Structures are given as structure tokens and as C-alpha cells.
């Protein structure tokens, strides 16, 4: 026990004398979460629209006003012909081009239906789909208003009245979804890198060899790294959750102690992964590159952080079961947005605990004190 104690004590003393690292470990997570919390929004707002108004009538003006008034759109230019739209879309200045043909106002006044062309920049398929949806809805709403204003009695009831309710996030604030995810991601990146460097640094400097010559045990070496970095990790958890709840006002509907507890298991996984990487690398550069490129990047993409796992082909979905971030994302989003508890989250917790045990065991096995 004494050995473990001095090992942990040594880490803290070293950390205190490494202020830059300290800053990176405490300040960076908060900074990143804040910055990215603002950026990570998939809402589509202020879509730049260019209008080609071939009619220049009161009616066309009214339609354009509708677009300008909507918070979803921002009319950035007005031209006359379709061809003039092209440069806007090509340079990305506008995402949509609304084409109002000449004779629009007259057709409407005479009760004839008109067709408007809506040119959309398809490069960003996702945003385009959403923007098109908004635009269609806006025009549709405008049209319905016109019909009701002119002849309310003609409006025959539809057969189906859709009642759509959104659970957990009625305002559809994508931030509520993304920020818990960013939280999990930031924790992952910081802790894995910390731990990955931990053992390799001593390898490079030579103090690991010195330790290997002493009676210190393998598990003590690992635990001696795990405990101090685990403490830092948990402090990070507190900090980032505080930022999420108090700064971004993301509602925390579930139990905070539960979140804290499961985070501890998650941190164990991430630190374990980092330590394992440390044992399979000879230089710090190797450790860092392996951690980032072999592990972190695939995890970011395949964990369901941005790209839904349901959309992935079956084979790859199987692979995602190996990623601890996947489970923690479910936990963190569930506790924040849905307020669910252990009864529902126990499979995720079990998976995380299992993962952590396996990876830590691997790290201990691989940190042989004697080369073969």
C-alpha cells in the first residue's frame, strides 16, 4: 500500500510543476466544451436566399416579405432572371434561389395556380433538405392563408388531422442533443491522451526501467497512474457538467449522482484505454498518434455522436458495440434529456464496466517488468 501511495503522490508533485499541462487538462476541456457547444448546432437558421423576381408586383413583394420576416431565412439579394441566381449558388453566397416568374401576380389574381421554382444548392444535402422543408412549409402556409382569406367557406375539412407531438425536446433544440455528446467527447479526448502519455513518458526518460528494477508490482504501476488521472477526470466531469447546465441551460432531468457515478466508470474506460496504448508504444509520438488516429477518430465517427448508428450498415453497427463512447452517449443523453435511471441504463453501465475491466487487465498484462 505504501508503494501505491508514493506512486500517486509522485504524479501529483510532477503535475504541479507542469503548469502548461495542468492548463491543458483543466482549462482546455471547459474552453472546448463552451466553443463547441455553441458550434454544434444542426438547426438551420438564417438560410441565405436569393430571389429572382421576374414579376415585380405587389403580390411577389408580399411573398418575398414573408421570407424576410421568417427567422429561418435571410434574403441576401434580389435579381430579375434565373441566370443571375447562378453566381450566388456557385460561390455559396446563397443556398436557395427563389424564382418568381413574370405574370405571377396576375395569375394569382385570376385564381390560376402558379408554380415557383426553388433552386437549391445540393452540396450540403442535409441542410438543403431541411431548408427546402422550411421553404415549402413557408410557401404552403402563405398559400393556405391566402385561400382562407379569400374564401373561408370553400375550405373543406381534411380526412386526417395530424397531431404531432415531440417528446423530450419539444422545442427541438438541437443543442440539448449535441452538448451532452460534446461533453462525452471532450472527456474522452482529454483523458485518453493524458493516460497514453503517462507511461510512455517514463519509458522515454528511463524512470520506468528504474521502477521495473524495484519490487513494485504491475498493478501498482497502473493504479498509480489511474488514481491521480482519475481524480482529474472526475474534476473535469464536474466542470463540464456545470458548463452544460449553467451556461448552456441544458436541462438535467435525471439524477446527477447517477451521472457522476457512471462517468466514473466511463473515465476508467478511457484512462484504461490510454494506459493500454501507453504499454504498446515506445515513444510519446507513437502513443499520441496511435491514440488519436487509431482510436479517437474512429470513435468520434462511429459512436453515434453525429452520425446516427441506425443509418450504418449492419456490419459496422456490430463494430460500434466495441466503442465505449457509444454507451456513454446513450447514458449522458438519456440522463440529460429523458431523465431515465438505472432500470433502463443498466445494459450500458454493464457494457462500460466490462469494457473498463478488459482494457485495464490488458494494460496490466502488457506492462511487463521483464522483456521476453
Amino acid at each position: 500500500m505504501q508503494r501505491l501511495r508514493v506512486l500517486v503522490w509522485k504524479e501529483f508533485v510532477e503535475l504541479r510543476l507542469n503548469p502548461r499541462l495542468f492548463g491543458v487538462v483543466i482549462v482546455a476541456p471547459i474552453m472546448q466544451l463552451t466553443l463547441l457547444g455553441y458550434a454544434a448546432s444542426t438547426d438551420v437558421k438564417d438560410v441565405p436566399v436569393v430571389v429572382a423576381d421576374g414579376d415585380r408586383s405587389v403580390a411577389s413583394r408580399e411573398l418575398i416579405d414573408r421570407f424576410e420576416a421568417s427567422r429561418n431565412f435571410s434574403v441576401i439579394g434580389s435579381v430579375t432572371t434565373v441566370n443571375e441566381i447562378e453566381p450566388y449558388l456557385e460561390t455559396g453566397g446563397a443556398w436557395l434561389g427563389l424564382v418568381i416568374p413574370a405574370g405571377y401576380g396576375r395569375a394569382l389574381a385570376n385564381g390560376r395556380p402558379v408554380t415557383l421554382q426553388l433552386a437549391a444548392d445540393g452540396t450540403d444535402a442535409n441542410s438543403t433538405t431541411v431548408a427546402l422543408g422550411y421553404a415549402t412549409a413557408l410557401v404552403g402556409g402563405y398559400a393556405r392563408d391566402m385561400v382562407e382569406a379569400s374564401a373561408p367557406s370553400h375550405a373543406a375539412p381534411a380526412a386526417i388531422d395530424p397531431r404531432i407531438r415531440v417528446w423530450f425536446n419539444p422545442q427541438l433544440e438541437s443543442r440539448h442533443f449535441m452538448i451532452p455528446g460534446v461533453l462525452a467527447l471532450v472527456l474522452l479526448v482529454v483523458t485518453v491522451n493524458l493516460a497514453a502519455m503517462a507511461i510512455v513518458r517514463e519509458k522515454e526518460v528511463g524512470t520506468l526501467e528504474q521502477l521495473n528494477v524495484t519490487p513494485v508490482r504491475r498493478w501498482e504501476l497502473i493504479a498509480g497512474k489511474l488514481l491521480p488521472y482519475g481524480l482529474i477526470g472526475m474534476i473535469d466531469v464536474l466542470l463540464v457538467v456545470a458548463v452544460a447546465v449553467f451556461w448552456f441551460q441544458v436541462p438535467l432531468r435525471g439524477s446527477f449522482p447517477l451521472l457522476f457515478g457512471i462517468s466514473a466508470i466511463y473515465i476508467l474506460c478511457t484512462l484504461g484505454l490510454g494506459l493500454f496504448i501507453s504499454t504498446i508504444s515506445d515513444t510519446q509520438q507513437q502513443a499520441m498518434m496511435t491514440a488519436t488516429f487509431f482510436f479517437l477518430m474512429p470513435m468520434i465517427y462511429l459512436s453515434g455522436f453525429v452520425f446516427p448508428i441506425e443509418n450504418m450498415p449492419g456490419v459496422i453497427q456490430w463494430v460500434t458495440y466495441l466503442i465505449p463512447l457509444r454507451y456513454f452517449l446513450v447514458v449522458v443523453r438519456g440522463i440529460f434529456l429523458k431523465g431515465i435511471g438505472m432500470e433502463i441504463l443498466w445494459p450500458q453501465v454493464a457494457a462500460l464496466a466490462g469494457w473498463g475491466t478488459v482494457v485495464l487487465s490488458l494494460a496490466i498484462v502488457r506492462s511487463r517488468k521483464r522483456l521476453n
Partner: protein
Amino acid sequence: MSAIEVRSLTRKFGQFTAVDGVSFEVGKGEIFGFLGSNGAGKSTTIRMLCGLLRPTSGTALVGGVDVSRDPEGVKRRIGYMSQRFSLYELLTVDQNISFFGGIYGLDRDTLARRRTFVLEMAGLAGRESSLARDLAGGWRQRLALGCAILHQPPILFLDEPTGGVDPLSRRQFWRLIDALSSDGVTVLVTTHYLDEAERCHRVALINGGRLAVIGTVAEVKQVFASRPIVEIRAARPVEAMQLLDAMPGVEKTSLFGTALHAVLKNTDVSVEELARKLRDAGIVVESIAAVQPSLEDVFLDVVDKSGSAA
């Protein structure tokens, strides 16, 4: 029983044999020097004996414990100091001592006692709060030694402990080793500073992974018993060398710093004759005399012999 017993110790790395069937014994309290050029196999041998590297074949008993079967048992009984003076840079002198003391499980009183001893031995009393990284070469070296002996191990392994340290500090260091040895500590030290090696009780020369020569310093120099060595200082050493090499009585020559060493084939050749022949050739000879063989002469001889045999 010897402190260290090595029988046919071998270590291969793939096709390359770094240590090839090395056998020797080290008695209690001896200072045993392990000599050889870089890559000869010194570090590999020492690491096997410390339980850091598994031997491919052969056995070694350190403090009576089998290195292959119980490496952890060995580690309790030994102290080790590496070429890199592995200290924690960001810890102070005092903190390094506390750390290693804790690792070896020393209780508070013992640690206090040993701390005072080590600080005094290293000359670091009063500098406990200096960071290890701020210490100059000689101080770090002594601190590293101190940390290695906190738990008073009966056997000490020192791997090139004087690398990159000034001569004054080196001499100081060896005095410390002498003191430890007279206290009964067995010291196995590797070095390529052959002048230091003269201070060992016994030496072993390793070349190409094989043990070439072993014995007391005097015994080892016996190889020159019938072949005197003459040291010559001349104005134009290269020319002198060529001339000497051509002479029938001379076996070989080599440069020793600014001087030449000529190994004579037998005791019949006279120094005066050599001097005359050089002067006749117009080479100014500053001094010429027979000298006692040094370990460096022995070393060069060994390497030379193995080279011609290969």
C-alpha cells in the same frame, strides 16, 4: 557462496546473439568490472542479471536467487543505477529520496536515517529542495547512486555510471564505490572508461558477446608478460608508426592519445635499438621507454585478436 554466479548466459535477439555463453562468478564485497566497447553485450548482461530481460538460455544466480525463475525475488536484493541516472526531473532531491524510499518500503525511522546518509554521501546536504533537473552531472550521478542504495542492498549493479561526468566527479564517485565495497556490498559495474576499471578487484572483458578475458587486473595484464610495451612520443607520430610497424621486433603499434604504444614480439628487442632506428630515419623522438601495460592495451589486444580470428 558467490554473490553472483553466471553459467553460459545467452541472449539472442532474432538472429543476432548479443550475449554468447558468458560464465563468471563474483564474490561477496568484490568490485567487478565489466568492460567492453559499445554493443559488446555489457548492458544486455546486466539487464538480464537485474531481471529486466529474460535470458535465452543459461542460468544466473544473484544473491542465491535464480534470475530466470524468480526475477522479482532478485529485485528485492539488488540496487540498480542506469546510464541515464533515472531520476524524476520534476521532483526535488528530497522528494526523489522519499519516493524511492517508499517504493522499497522503508519505514519512517529507517528512511530518515538513510536519507541523512545519502545526502551526506552525495554532498547534497542543504540542497534538498533543488529540482533534480537543475542538478549538474556529478550531483545527479551521486543522487542516483544514493537512491539505488536506500534499502541497503547487498548487491549493486551500475551500468556505465560515469558517462558524461567530469573527471573530478568520476574520481569522487569511485571513492564512494570503494567505501561501499569495504562495507561488504558486491558491486558489478560496466564501464568503457578503462582507466577507471583499474580500480576494480577483478575485471571481465566482453567482446562480440563473448567473455574474452577475466581475472584480477594484474592477472589480466599477464597477457603481456612476454611482450613488453614501449611508449614513444615523437614529433611525427604517423611516420614513426609506419616505421615501427616495418621493424621485425615489433608486433603492432597503436595510438594512445598523443603517444604511440608499440607491442614488442618478445623481450629480446631492446628499447635503445628502436630509438636508434627512429633517429636514424630522421624522426625526432621526445621520449621512449618501456611501460607497464594498461587495461587499454589489454583491451586493444583482445579486440585485435578477435578481429583477426574472425
